[in-house]
């Protein structure tokens, strides 16, 4: 493997301004991780217009930092308040909060930070080794392969997201439909524009992301407002003891592996990997009954996993151009905005962006370790910031940001309408993730489908006649069978966790036992 581009990527990272953007990104990530409400996808969407003018490598370094930084920050509220800041840290609330109640919050936060650091770093090394191979392989992909890849991506995200299967498919359908607004990609006929010039160029992805994730989330939280100030459990230094480290080092290792593998899968990502890592730890433990009562492995495993997954989920985006989860879909939009189409060409055509971003994650993880061990007190104090003040600030940054893209008021109306759509979807139990992902992949899917049909002269069997596309068809069929099975298992685990988090029991362990017997 040629190391020259990898090394010159470090040169990009150590440019002072890129170091600064990296620090800014991970700090923002920690912040949104700590503050419940806005997730990393929403934050990245809101910041897209602001990164417009920044250099591509710097912009993606900043936005990527928000994503993996949020995985660190979400732990803090899980452990101290049992209010997970991010979905991927829900499972850490189980044992983390119990540890905090026993006065071991510092140990829980410390091991979470160290585990996250190790998981994240190991994942970057694996990414460095694997990504070029995947990209190289993907260079031979034609329209048929891209049709299938996009289908697999949408299907897996739809099935693995937390909502119900049919609803995710319907949400993806609406996303695909919205993607067709504008001029037909092949022949230029206006579609669904209702005679409006504003819609003739189609709907900008940034506006969809800002509307659904940004305004939609804020409106949704408005209905859940006036939450009382939570009481924060106190703790000393965020550092585990030697014994605790020895106890949890294998959990960190196992979590990193689970996270890396699941993160690569579309729809796998951080949340799923943290749940699986928890299950793995429980199974591996000599005395599983300690789990739910403050077992440190129950924090170390999932926290290492969610960070490893956050990192490895960059692989499909940067090598195939297929985002693996909602946040990656927003980053897909960010790359497009910068004029860099994500795909197998990226690593060859823009090595500075690719390796700059990948290598910046080493530095970002070091920053995060510093932020979450010595400086953790600063972030804990932020828990006192009221949501009532944050909501109008974020909504106004969104509105002004939307205007700044094209200096166009129409876009502001569009973002409010999409925000209402996002709110309605959440109320009716539809996840915005599959919608946004389908919107992003819609054009790729349609044009590769149409090109393939021309190539195969209308014969669907063409898809199975090329070796690579045939194996992708097999993969698609496999996911149709395997994924619902996985989903059933995960659904049970998620319900279990949700139930355990929601139900306090005298010693934490009883809740698990009692639900078992009910089933």
């Amino acid at each position, binding site marked *: 493997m040629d190391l020259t581009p990898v090394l010159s990527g470090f040169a990009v990272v150590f440019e002072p301004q890129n170091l600064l953007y990296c620090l800014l990104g991970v700090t923002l990530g920690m912040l949104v991780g700590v503050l419940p409400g806005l997730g990393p996808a929403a934050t990245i969407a809101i910041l897209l217009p602001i990164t417009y003018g920044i250099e591509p490598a710097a912009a993606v370094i900043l936005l990527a930092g928000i994503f993996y930084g949020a995985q660190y920050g979400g732990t803090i509220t899980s452990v101290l308040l049992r209010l997970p800041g991010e979905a991927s840290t829900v499972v850490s609330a189980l044992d983390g909060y119990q540890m905090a109640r026993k006065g071991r919050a510092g140990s829980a936060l410390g091991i979470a930070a160290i585990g996250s650091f190790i998981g994240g770093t190991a994942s970057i090394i694996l990414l460095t080794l694997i990504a070029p191979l995947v990209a190289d392989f993907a260079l031979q992909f034609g329209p048929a392969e891209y049709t299938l890849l996009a289908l697999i991506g949408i299907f897996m995200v739809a099935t693995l997201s937390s909502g119900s299967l049919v*609803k995710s498919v319907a949400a993806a359908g609406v996303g695909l439909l919205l993607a067709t607004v504008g001029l037909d990609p092949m022949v230029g006929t206006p579609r669904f524009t209702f005679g409006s010039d504003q819609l003739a160029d189609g709907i900008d992805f940034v506006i969809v992301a800002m509307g659904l994730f940004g305004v939609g989330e804020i409106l949704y939280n408005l209905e859940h*407002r006036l939450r009382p100030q939570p*009481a924060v459990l106190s703790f000393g230094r965020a550092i585990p003891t030697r014994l605790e480290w020895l106890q949890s080092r294998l959990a960190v290792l196992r979590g990193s592996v689970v996270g890396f593998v699941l993160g690569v899968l579309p729809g796998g990502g951080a949340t799923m990997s943290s749940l699986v890592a928890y299950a793995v730890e429980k199974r591996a433990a000599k005395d599983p009954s300690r789990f739910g009562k403050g077992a440190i492995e129950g924090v170390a495993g999932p926290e290492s996993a969610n960070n490893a997954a956050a990192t490895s989920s960059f692989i499909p985006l940067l090598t195939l151009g297929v985002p693996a989860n909602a946040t990656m879909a927003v980053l897909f939009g960010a790359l497009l905005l910068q004029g860099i189409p994500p795909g197998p060409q990226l690593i060859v055509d823009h090595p500075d962006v690719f390796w700059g971003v990948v290598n910046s994650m080493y530095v970002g993880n070091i920053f995060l370790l510093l932020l979450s061990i010595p400086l953790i007190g600063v972030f804990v104090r932020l828990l006192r910031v009221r949501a009532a003040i944050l909501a109008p600030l974020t909504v106004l940054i969104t509105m*002004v940001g939307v205007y700044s893209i094209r200096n166009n008021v129409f876009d502001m109306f569009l973002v409010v309408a999409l925000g209402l759509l996002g709110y309605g979807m959440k109320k009716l139990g539809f996840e915005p993730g599959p919608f946004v992902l389908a919107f992003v992949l819609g054009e790729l899917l349609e044009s590769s489908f149409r090109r393939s049909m021309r190539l195969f002269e209308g014969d669907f069997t063409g898809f199975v006649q090329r070796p690579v596309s045939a194996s992708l068809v097999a993969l698609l069929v496999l996911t149709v069978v395997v994924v619902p099975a996985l989903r059933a298992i995960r659904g049970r685990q998620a319900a279990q966790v949700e139930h355990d988090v*929601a139900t306090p029991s005298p010693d934490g362990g009883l809740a698990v036992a009692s639900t078992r017997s009910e089933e």
Partner: protein
Amino acid sequence: MAANGVPAQANGVPPEADGVPPEVERPATEPPGEELPPGGPVLATVAGVVPVLTGLVAFWLARGLGLGTLTDPGPGLWPTIVAVLLVVSGAAIVARARRTTDTEAFTRGTGVVLVGAASLALYAFLFELVGFEIPTVLVLVLWLRFFGRESWRTTALVSLLTTAALYALFITALGVPLPHLIVI
């Protein structure tokens, strides 16, 4: 889903049970105002009817675009495929509406959401007419004072600081030509 039989919001155990002071235990177990009642079967049906209707409208509009053939797909073919997907998935949602519990009832808080969205639409409307400063302050006052029940002092302080910060960020730092009244 419903088959799991585990209600998502079960918090039956009184917080005092293990001698932990209630004020420590309470926020994590049941943040009041956080849990909205689930929607009934009507709402669950609506969740399926909307995609079906969207699909039907798209189907009808796409027919006018020209389907073409499979060998040479026209502009309407892809939207038609998506429309069929929508109708089928929507019908499936309706079919299992009775068993789903993942919707959330619309409460009085929904009114606040609609007012909030309307305030943003008004913001967009006034934006180019009178510059961004006055609408910004108005939205902040509405959201802070009336939605957030902050004190007038906090409201005034946050509103002015935010407007100044937006000015500094977008106009001064990023050079975006926002319509504005105050020229520095």
